[in-house]
Each structure stands twice: as structure tokens, then as C-alpha cells.
């Protein structure tokens, strides 16, 4: 999926899209799009009129057939352009689906029989609850949960990430996906889905657009477009009697041309392409949205709930300061601290060594090769080194160290408690360092906010989105990190229920809430949230509860997803506005052309000075058709979204798509008219 080749529009996609544009001419398909369906009816009528121009009565004019035929052809092209836009958008999804399907084909599985033996069956025969064994080098045949074993899995077929991930029984890393490859060891897996419902199947359906349903907003917009279409049908239908009253007659083909120019064909043709492309943009961020509705909801999110650890801060606390106590110097403290951490492979331990080096104290591991490394245990809550000369170095939780020292009749310096308190109040974690029973001082461990987070939260604030940080830390620590990261609010000592309560409280105020999570205990909250982004590394329960899955397991992606949701809506609004604004110029082209025979003075409205009535009508119609393919790239890429205030964004987009939408067709129609005139087609 991450492969660039499947993302760009290849020649193959285009060829298929051209073919699809014709297949989609089927009225049974097109009727789902009322605007384009009206165009198709217009096409059918003008086609009939180009065979016999007098179906609806009237008098024969020379050249009538050619004119009607021209209108019919332009209408056909208009529909084809619309179909093409949709087909291209779908085509990209289909190409991705094909590459996914390859991962799925011809898998076999070792299924455990009731007797306990294993038998080889095709993967399609697997049912929920079956247990299979997968050996190193095999493909995992179906989605499931690891019952036994631990192994590394290549999930690149799904995530595009080539680095293998560890999967094992129990905990939050027990879920495996069908179509991925086990690289090492052996796993016993319980299948959790029936055929056709697997994650891969879901993904294929999603990217292919097979299960695509109109989102609520798309539905509302379709209704408005249908309403506008109906208004213009009325406007155009009543024109002929009015013209008759002023002793004239307007040809049916011209009336249809006017109708098609006026109804919002541009947005009608591009609406579903915009939706598909929006989903596609999400997929390209390696996020699978289970529905378009979720993407749309993301644009509306008011509150973003983020876990502190791993999302706002880099996962671990790092040493940031050495604070000596008693009569020890900083130098002594650093030495003791570095020695105690020398063989400590935890990020905290590494950070102590690194900070010591920065302060000019470094010790080579080799010179301590005879020392005994004491690992951290939940019991002692300290770790360190026993040197060969019998001296002990330890670092650990302050109260554990204090007890350790007091038990051995050591002295605890008076300022230890005060300095510990200071660090805790500042949101840090204090670690005490001892040499023997001598307390040298404290290491100040600090949460490190990921670079750039503060700026992103500021952007979110500008979008009107409130960020809430969730952490298991105490209130003091939480407040400090919240301030440093620039989040709007935090919950300290948060339990899963607290998250749930927060979501419900926010929703109670009518707000939409987004959150990310991975653990099973996150599942209820993920389900409750309006946008729940589950991590692919998370449990099956979490993935099922969320309405989006992030294949890269990067919780900060929520922010991108929000932007994509907004971009989708903006694109829809911008092209609708452009489409409606276009009508102004089309009126100035067509109305004088229509009535000039009856009311010659209406020629004054022909502000574009178009050559002839026919060229005016055809130019407007051709412009109307050409604008569709010209806007396909915009529909695919989406209108650029910038986090600025709503009013300035409105003004900016109105200026481009509203005012631009009024002006562009005046120029466009004039140019087409000049071309038609130059080609000698103005009097067709």
C-alpha cells in the first residue's frame, strides 16, 4: 500500500477509467446522480431531435439537424467527463485493492482438528474459532489472536512498513492479520473472523469503494443539488410559453442546452469523485477509515483526546538534571549516577549516561566488566551495580532508597525530602542515587514533549479544536506537561472509565470527540468517541471498536485525519460554489441568444459580444463540459486547507471559488466562441 506506484494515476487506471465512463452511461447507474441523469435525458431527446428535428412540431430550418446533433454530442461528452472523474477516483482504489488481493490468494492453513492433530486446509475454509498453527516463513491465513508463542511478523503487505513487528500471546500485541508473513518462531492462532469479513477483505471493500455509502453531508448536498436542478427545470420549462407570448419560439435543443448549463453539473459530476478521493487521501496516510462518515466527522471534531505517553511525549522520561544533596558535589553525584546506570539498558538509564557524558563524566563499560549488574525489580524498585571492590551503586525511587539506607543505619540528608518535593511539583520524576548508604543526590527525570507538538496544538486551537491530555501521572506532573505541550486541558491519574466519562460529558454538550487508543481497555471509549482511531498494533477489540485504524500506529495522525476531513468538506463546498457562480455568465451568453429573434433589444445583454446565437449557446455548453475534466485534479487533490479562523477561510475560498466562479466562465466562453468562430462553426 505504501508503494508509490499504486498511488499515482497510471496509464492502466486511465484506460480502465475511459472504459468505465461508457459502462456508467447505463441509466440504471446514472439515476443515482439526479443532476447527471437529467443531462442524460437531455442527451436522449437531442439525439432523437438530430434524427427528426420535428418530433415536437415546429418548422424546419436548414442546419437544424447538425445543430441538434452538436448539442447531443456535447451533452454526451459532459456525461462521459463526469463518469470519467468518478472512474478515475475509483480506479486508484481498485489498483490498491488488486495489490491487496494478491496477498490473499491461495493461502493454506494448518488447522487443529478436535483430536489435536493439524490438517492442511485452504484458508477460505477457516471459520471463527478455528485454531491454526503458523510456522516461520508461512503466511498467516486469517485474522486472529495469538494463543501461544511469540514471533516477528512482516506486515508490509498491509502497512507498507517493512520493519517486522513482534506478535505474541497475551497483552496488547496479540492480534495478527491474515495475509501477513510470520518471519520467525511459531504461533498458535485462534481465528477471529469468518471468510469475507477479515481485515483484508474490509480494506479491499473500502479502497474499492464497493461498500461506499453517501455520507450525511454528501446526502444533504445531493438533495440541495436536486432541488436546484428542479428549480431550473421549472425555469426552462416555463420559458417556451413565455416566448410564445412574445411571438417567438425556442428550439427544444436550445432549451435543453440552457437547462444543462444552469443545473449544477460541475459539482454533480465531481461529487462522488470528491468523496472517493477523500477516502483515498486518508488511506494514503496509511489510515483505514471504516466509513466516509468517519472522515467527515473528523472534520467536525471539537475535542481531541490524546494519551500523554507516546502521543504527546516521547514514550520515556529522560534525565534532565542532577541535583546533589547533603554536602555532595554535583561531580560526585554524576559519577555515582553514571556508574549505577552503566549497564542499565532502559531509556531512562541510557539518558542518565548520556547526560553525564554531556556534563563531562563518562565511564567505559569495559573497565567495569567485572562488576555485577543489579536489574530493576518491582520489589526493590532500584537498580545499579555492585563493583568488584564491594562498593554498591544504586539508583531508584526515592522512598525505596530511603528505606534501603535507613535499614542499613545510614544517614538521610535533611534536604533530600525538600528537593524531592521540588522535582515532583515541577512534574518530574526524582530518582535517588546512593553509593553504599551515602545518598549523593537526585536525578531529575523529565517527560520530553515531542518536537513540534506545541505548534500543532496551537494550530488545532486555531481550528477551534480543544485538546485534552490523558495521563496516569499525578496532577502535578500532568499540569506541567500540559503546560509545556500547550494542550488546553488534562486529566491526571486517568483510568479508562475517566476517558469514557470525559467523552460522554463532551458529547453531552453537543461536541464531537476524537481519540486514539490501542488497548482492550480503550475499546469502549473508542466505540463511544465520534472518531476513534485504533492503532494497528492494538488488540482486535480496539480495532473493532474504532472507526479508523492507523496502520503505522502513530496516534498523532488524528491531527492529519482532522485536516483531511476538513479538506474534503471544503472541496465539496468550493466546487459547489464555483458551479453555481458559473451560471451568471452562462445566462449572459444564452438569454440574449434565445430571445434576440423576438426582442432584438435584448442584444444589449450580450456583454461578451458572442458571434451568433448558436455559437453563444454552444460555447456555454462546451465550457460547461470542459470545466469538469479541468477540475478533476482539484477534486482529487482537494482544496488546500490552512488552519486559520473560519471567517478568513470563508472569505479566501469565496474570493477564489465564488468570485472566480463568476469571472472564469466569461473568459472561458468568450475564448471558446472565438475558437468556434475561427473554425467557421459559429453559424452551424
Amino acid at each position, binding site marked *: 500500500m505504501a508503494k508509490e506506484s499504486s498511488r499515482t494515476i497510471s496509464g492502466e487506471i486511465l484506460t480502465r477509467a475511459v472504459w468505465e465512463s461508457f459502462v456508467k452511461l447505463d441509466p440504471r447507474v446514472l439515476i443515482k446522480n439526479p443532476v447527471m441523469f437529467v443531462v442524460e435525458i437531455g442527451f436522449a431527446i437531442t439525439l432523437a431531435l438530430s434524427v427528426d428535428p420535428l418530433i415536437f412540431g415546429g418548422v424546419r430550418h436548414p442546419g437544424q439537424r447538425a445543430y441538434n446533433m452538436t448539442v447531443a454530442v456535447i451533452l454526451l461528452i459532459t456525461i462521459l467527463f463526469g463518469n470519467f472523474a468518478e472512474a478515475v477516483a475509483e480506479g486508484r482504489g481498485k489498483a490498491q485493492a488488486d495489490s491487496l488481493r494478491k496477498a490473499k490468494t491461495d493461502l493454506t492453513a494448518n488447522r487443529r482438528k478436535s483430536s489435536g492433530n493439524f490438517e492442511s486446509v485452504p484458508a477460505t475454509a477457516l471459520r471463527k474459532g478455528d485454531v491454526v498453527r503458523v510456522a516461520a516463513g508461512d503466511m498467516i491465513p486469517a485474522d486472529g489472536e495469538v494463543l501461544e508463542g511469540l514471533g516477528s511478523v512482516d506486515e508490509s503487505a498491509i502497512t507498507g512498513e517493512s520493519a517486522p513487528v513482534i506478535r505474541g500471546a497475551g497483552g496488547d500485541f496479540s492480534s495478527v492479520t491474515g495475509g501477513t508473513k510470520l518471519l520467525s518462531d511459531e504461533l498458535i492462532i485462534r481465528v477471529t473472523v469468518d471468510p469475507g469479513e477479515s481485515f483484508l477483505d474490509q480494506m479491499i471493500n473500502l479502497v474499492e469503494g464497493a461498500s461506499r455509502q453517501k455520507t*450525511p*453531508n454528501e*446526502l*444533504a*448536498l445531493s*438533495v*440541495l443539488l436536486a*432541488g436546484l436542478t*428542479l*428549480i431550473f427545470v*421549472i*425555469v426552462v420549462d*416555463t*420559458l*417556451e*410559453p*413565455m416566448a*410564445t*407570448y*412574445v411571438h417567438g419560439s425556442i428550439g427544444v435543443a436550445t432549451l435543453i442546452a440552457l437547462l444543462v448549463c444552469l443545473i449544477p453539473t460541475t459539482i454533480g459530476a465531481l461529487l462522488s469523485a470528491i468523496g472517493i478521493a477523500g477516502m483515498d487521501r486518508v488511506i494514503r496516510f496509511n489510515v483505514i477509515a471504516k466509513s466516509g462518515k468517519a472522515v*467527515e466527522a473528523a*472534520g*467536525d471534531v*471539537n475535542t481531541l483526546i490524546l494519551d500523554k505517553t507516546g502521543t504527546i511525549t516521547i514514550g520515556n522520561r529522560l534525565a534532565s538534571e542532577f541535583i546533589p544533596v547533603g554536602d555532595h558535589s554535583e561531580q560526585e553525584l554524576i559519577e555515582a549516577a553514571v556508574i549505577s546506570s552503566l549497564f542499565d539498558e532502559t531509556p531512562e538509564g541510557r539518558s542518565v549516561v548520556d547526560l553525564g557524558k554531556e556534563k563531562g563524566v563518562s565511564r567505559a563499560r569495559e573497565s567495569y566488566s567485572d562488576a555485577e549488574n543489579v536489574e530493576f525489580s518491582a520489589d526493590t524498585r532500584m537498580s545499579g551495580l555492585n563493583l568488584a571492590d564491594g562498593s554498591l551503586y544504586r539508583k531508584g525511587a526515592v522512598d525505596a532508597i530511603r528505606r534501603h539506607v535507613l535499614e542499613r543505619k545510614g544517614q538521610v540528608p535533611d534536604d533530600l525530602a525538600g528537593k524531592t518535593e521540588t522535582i515532583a511539583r515541577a512534574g518530574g520524576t526524582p530518582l535517588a542515587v546512593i553509593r553504599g548508604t551515602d545518598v549523593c543526590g537526585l536525578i531529575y527525570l523529565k517527560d520530553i514533549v515531542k518536537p513540534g507538538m506545541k505548534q500543532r496544538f496551537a494550530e488545532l486551537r*486555531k*481550528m*477551534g*479544536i480543544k485538546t485534552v491530555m490523558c495521563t496516569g501521572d499525578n496532577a502535578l506532573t500532568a499540569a506541567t506537561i500540559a503546560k509545556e505541550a500547550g494542550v488546553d486541558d488534562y486529566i491526571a491519574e486517568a483510568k479508562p472509565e475517566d476517558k469514557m466519562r470525559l467523552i460522554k460529558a463532551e458529547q453531552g*454538550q*453537543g*461536541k464531537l470527540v476524537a481519540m486514539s487508543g490501542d488497548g482492550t481497555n480503550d475499546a469502549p471509549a473508542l466505540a463511544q468517541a465520534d472518531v476513534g482511531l485504533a492503532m494497528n498494533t492494538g488488540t482486535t477489540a480496539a480495532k473493532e471498536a474504532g472507526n479508523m485504524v492507523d496502520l503505522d500506529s502513530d496516534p498523532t495522525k488524528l491531527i492529519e485525519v482532522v485536516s483531511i476531513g476538513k*479538506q474534503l*468538506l*471544503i472541496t*465539496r*463546498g468550493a466546487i459547489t*460554489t464555483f458551479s*453555481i*457562480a458559473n*451560471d*451568471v455568465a452562462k*445566462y449572459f451568453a444564452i*438569454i440574449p441568444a434565445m*430571445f434576440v429573434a423576438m*426582442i*432584438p*433589444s*435584448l442584444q*444589449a*445583454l450580450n456583454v461578451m459580444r458572442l458571434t451568433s446565437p448558436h455559437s453563444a449557446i454552444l460555447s456555454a455548453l462546451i465550457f460547461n463540459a470542459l470545466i469538469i475534466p479541468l477540475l478533476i485534479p482539484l477534486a482529487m487533490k482537494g482544496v488546500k*486547507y490552512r488552519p486559520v*479562523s*473560519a*471567517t478568513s*477561510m*470563508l*472569505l479566501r*475560498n*469565496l474570493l477564489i471559488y*465564488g468570485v472566480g466562479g463568476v469571472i472564469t466562465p466569461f473568459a472561458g466562453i468568450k475564448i471558446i466562441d472565438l475558437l468556434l468562430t475561427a473554425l467557421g462553426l459559429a453559424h452551424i
Partner: protein
Amino acid sequence: MTVAGSIGIVAVIAVVLLLGIPLGGYLHRVFTGARSWFEPVFDPFERLLYKLVGVNQSVRMDWKAYLRALMLVNFMMMIFAYLIFRLQGMLPLNPDHIPGMSWDLAFNTAASFITNTNWQNYAGEQSMSYLGQTLAITYLQFTSAATGFVAAIAFVRGLTANRSDSIGNFWVDFIKIHTRVLLPLAIAFAVLLVGLGVPQTLLGAQTAHTLQGGTQIISRGPVASLEAIKQIGTNGGGFFNANSAHPFEDPTAFTSVLEMVAMGVISVALIAVFGKFVANRRQARVLYVFLTTILLVGAFVVYANEAAGNPLVHQALGIAGPNMEGKEWRFGPALSSVFVAMTTAFTTGAVSSMHDSLMPLSGLVPFLFMMFNLIFGGKGVGLLNIVMFLIITVFLSGLMVGRTPEIFGKKIEAREIKLATVAMLVHPFFILVPTAIAVATKAGTSSILNPGLHGFSEVLYAFTSAAANNGSAFAGLNGNTVFYNVSLGIVMLLGRYVSIIAMFAIAGSLAKKAVIPASAGTLKTDTFAFGAVFVAVFVIVGALTFFPALAIGPIGEQLQMLSRLAGH
């Protein structure tokens, strides 16, 4: 155009605003149940009415119950009026022995007055008994205004409710608007008009002997009481055929100004009421600025064209000066022009000059104002249309700021858009389709007095006026035929009730939704930027819809006139 005339136009509109905005505060208090100084007067009276009618004040109605009550009352009143018009020949208070109306005229008139349109296919002094003028016409002028007004109040309640079904109690609202607003204002205004020369009597027509020795029958009657509510209720249906151009309805320039103020003040106040309900003064301010600007522009377009006069007359006959055809000398071009703009903006429909005689471009102003039907608009209905276009505007522009659209914290979804689209379809459908039928049939064209484009304008104007529930006439069209009586009657009824029903359904659906608190990402509807978009949307949608018809009508006429001028 003269400086005095221009100042006069601005002054009239300024007075309307200065009186209307504070009145809004009072109206808001009335409909939120706040007590007023007049409580000792109103309260016992209302209690008595509630007891008589059997109203339980504490009942809260959802939109369907409210709408049912509203429709039922309207239907009963229309039947009542129809019967009076049919039977007035046999009923008392008929000193001039006026016979009953034909079925089609009675239907048209009943439909016209129940819908606050006041289109008149009859001449009041010849075809309406005093019983009809008072018990049917004046009565409906109160109740139709009240109906529109309470519809708007109930709608706004729904718009601002938070997860609730209730939009108020129709009976309480309907009684309160009468007792606390319309009756006091109308009685005071009627007394004032009597003092300024408007007759109020139940005596029959007076026969006068002229100096030349001829006799003249001078019609009179209970005029002041009708005239007061005709303006205050934005009704517009006159006692006399000549409407406010008649000296007994509008004797002086001063009374003309008073009548304009009376017709504008409640519609203007409703915007302030709206602002108070949505608890956003800036919202009201933005609407005031844009609507007032459009009203002023419209008034000055009329004034400029009328003051300039007819260039063809000037060319052919050498007569310069303002176009005085169809105008009263006592009002002059400036007052007549602002009356044209205001009577169509507020959808009153009273006329103090003949719209048929306006210059083509001046004629475009009343056309557009009626087609928009929201430049303040008629009693309540104007506000409903404003909110309807706010919803459409929010939907289009809300998308462009990257959120699914919401108005006053309520999400706008497919259901609301569907209903708003129905409301938006009412105008094009009920104006264009009947116009097309009329100009295509013998029944329709035989009533047209002027040939050519002007005749087309007359028909288009009639249906626009009916659909917008305005009631002003372009004249020049004989409306009292079965065809026009029935078609205009149906258009008036559908033009009013279809949009009220659709808007009520929107109110019901919005009332149930939770209010989403505003954030920095929310599109603000109370900014001038949004106001400009709002104007652009209704002007463009309106223009796109009616441009072809207007091109055949007033625009075509104007261009024809100009080309004739150039042809000489």
C-alpha cells in the same frame, strides 16, 4: 431627484428603524412571558379569553400540534369569510345594497385575506358591504398578520431550543399578539387617522351636488379602522379600489409617511426579536445593515428613474420632469417611490401610486423585492424566508470552512436541506408555472390590457404578488375572471402555507437537536463577511431563477425603450 426628496426617503426609513428596533425588545418580552407594565390591563382580559376559548396555558406544543392548530384556525376563518362574501347581500350593515360575490371572487378574496396577501379582484366601494369590510376584511387583516407573526416566533423558538419538542402554545401566542400588540397599536393608529381626516362611519355613500350641477356619489364607511391594521399588519388591502392613492385612505403626505412607518415597524422589530432569541445582537445588526441597504438602494432606484421621467415622452413631446403618470400630486415622486419600495419589501401591497405606470427599471424593484420576499418581508413570513436563506447560505459557505454546516449551533443535515429546498422551490414554482400557463392560454391572455412586453410584466407581477403574499397590483390586468380568481387564489394559499409547513418541519427537527457550542472553527453568521455572502446567495439564486422571465418583462421593456430612443 431633489435633495429634499432624497432626505425624505432616508428619513422615512430611519424613523421605521428607530421605532422598530426598540419595539423588538417589547415583542421579545411578550413572547418569552416577561411581565410588562400593562399586566393589570392585559392579564385579566387574556384570562377571560383563555377561559372562553378553553385554552390551557400550560400546554406545550410540538411543531405538529402547533401547526395543526394554526392551520385549523386559518381554515375556519377562511370558510367564515367566504360565507360572508357570498351572503353579504342578505346580511346587515349594507347601506349601499351591495350584492353577494360570485363563488370564484369570494374564494379569491377569502384566500387573499387569510394569507395576508390582500390581492383585490374586487373594488371595495362597489363590491363589499360594511359587514364584509369589518367582520371579514378587517378581522382577517388582524388574524392573518397574527398567524404569520406567531409562525415566526414559534419557528425561532424551535431554532433556539435545545433537545426539546416544544415550540410554544399556539393559542396563547395567537391571543397575546392580538391583545398586546396588534389591537393596541391599531386602535391608537385608527384614532390618529380619524384625527387626520380619514372617515370612520357606518353611514352609506353620500350623494353630492357639484358646482356644475351634476351629482356625485361619494363612498365612505369604516375606513380608519381598516386602514390602521391594513398597514400595521402589512396587509395592504384597501377600503377603496384606489387603495392608499384614495384621499380617504391616505389624505396627506403626512398620513402617507405615517402609513409607511406603520407598515414597516413590526417587520423591522422582528429582526431585533430574532437577535434576542438567538442571544446575538450582532446577528441582528448585520441583518439590519444589509437589509436596510438593499431597501434604500431599491427606493433610490425607483426614485432616480421616476424623477428622471420618461425619455421617450421628453423626446416626442418635449415634456421634461418626473414621471407623474399614476402618481398623486400630494405625495410627489419621492414619497411615491419610497412607498413602492417599502410596500413590496414589507410585502404590504398597499399602493399610493400605480405600479403599472412606473418606468421599467423602477418596476424591476418591486418585482425583485417580492421575488426575494425577505427584505424584512411581511409579518413573520419575511423572517421565515430570511432564516431559510440563512440555512442555504450556511450550508454552502459552512462547507467552505471545513465543517459540516451548522446554524446557531444546530447541525444542518439532509432533512433540513430537503425542507428548505421545498420552501425555496415555492417561489419559482408558483410564480413561473402559473405565469407560463396564463400567457399560453386564451383565458389568461384575454385579461391583459396592454400588449407586448408590458402585458407580460402585468401577468408576471400578478403571480409574483400572489406567491409572495404581497397583494400589490401592477394593475392593467383584469383579475376578476374565473381563471385569475381561481389561479391567483390557489397560488396565494400554496405560496403561504407550503413554505410555512416546510419551515415548521425544519423548526421541529432543529428543536430536537443539541446545541453545539461555538468554537474558533465555527462559521460565524454574525459577521459582515457572512452577511455579504447571505446577500450574494439570495440575490444570485433569485436572479438565476427569475432572470429569463424578467428579461422578457421589465428588463426587455427598458432595453426596448432605450433602443427606441437611440433609433430616433
